[in-house]
């Protein structure tokens, strides 16, 4: 009985991540790659993503403190962050990356700073939600498999 309840909870939580626009279809692709050989594949990808993103966010932070701003450098970092966000399906973060790069292109320093703050917020939120979601999945036990809504 409890098992069913927690499975339902997991499914509801998972669906809300899509409904609220945090994740897109790419996340489902990753889930479909998960199998017996790699039962925690998606969580491993997420862990890689946190590590890679925090490195890039640090770099961006430092670069944004310089004066004058080096837009090429900023764009390079953001391109990388966009790439990894795309690979995991981080929809909102990816949108902020795109917006930031647009400001880089037009040399709009204020726009970059503003967007970066927004990006950090979105990233922080996504990370918390994903961590909570994976914890639920782990607690439900090894037979729990994310299922795709029909």
């Amino acid at each position, binding site marked *: 009985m409890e098992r069913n309840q927690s499975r339902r909870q997991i499914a509801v939580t998972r669906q809300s991540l899509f409904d609220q626009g945090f994740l897109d279809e790419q996340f489902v692709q990753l889930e479909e790659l998960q*199998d017996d050989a790699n039962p925690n*594949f998606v969580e491993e*990808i997420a862990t*890689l993503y946190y590590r890679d993103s925090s490195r890039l966010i640090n770099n961006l932070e430092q670069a944004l403190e310089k004066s004058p701003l080096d837009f*090429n450098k900023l764009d*390079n970092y953001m391109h990388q962050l966009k*790439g*990894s966000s*795309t690979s995991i399906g981080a929809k909102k973060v990816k949108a902020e990356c795109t917006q930031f790069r647009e400001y880089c292109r037009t040399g709009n320093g204020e726009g970059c700073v503003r967007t970066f703050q927004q990006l950090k917020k979105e990233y922080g939120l996504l990370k918390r939600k994903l961590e909570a979601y994976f914890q639920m999945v782990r607690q439900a036990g090894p037979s729990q498999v994310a299922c795709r809504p029909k």
Partner: protein
Amino acid sequence: MDGDGFLPGEFPAGLRVLLVDGDPISLVIVKKLLRTSLYEGHILQLFLQNATEQKRLCPCLERRKMGLILLCVMFTCLAWIGLKFLDCVEREMDIPVIILSADEGDDDLLKSVIHGTSAFYVKPVCPRLVQSISEHVFRKKVKEWRALNKSTLPSEHFQIMGQICSKDIDTV
């Protein structure tokens, strides 16, 4: 020769793939995709993030007889490294190159076509990539066959790959 006995529609066994990317997440995903598609060959992965590493690429290719290259480079100032590499591959080795890009820019597409890549594929990485790989390697095999045999392949070889390939065969 790599991929002997390879039928279209099947993933070429023993194909040596060089996977070049600066994004560690994308690397893991592509590798998983290839493994899931029952690909058992050798995957060599390289981070391409600066000019020093690029210099090692061409010699590495020659030594290890790669069958396919999946290349993800940032098409910004750093990217000229990637394009020089493409020139080297194109001129000297005739290995199919598929570009994986995080950007949809038309500029990038044009540049990569000029430099002779087989395909330009926008990330995120998903199973269609495997189909694309299969298709491009197959195309190269047909080219090789024709060069050797001065004739077309028997038509039953085309059936499995379907419409896409039979349309393209005449222009290969």
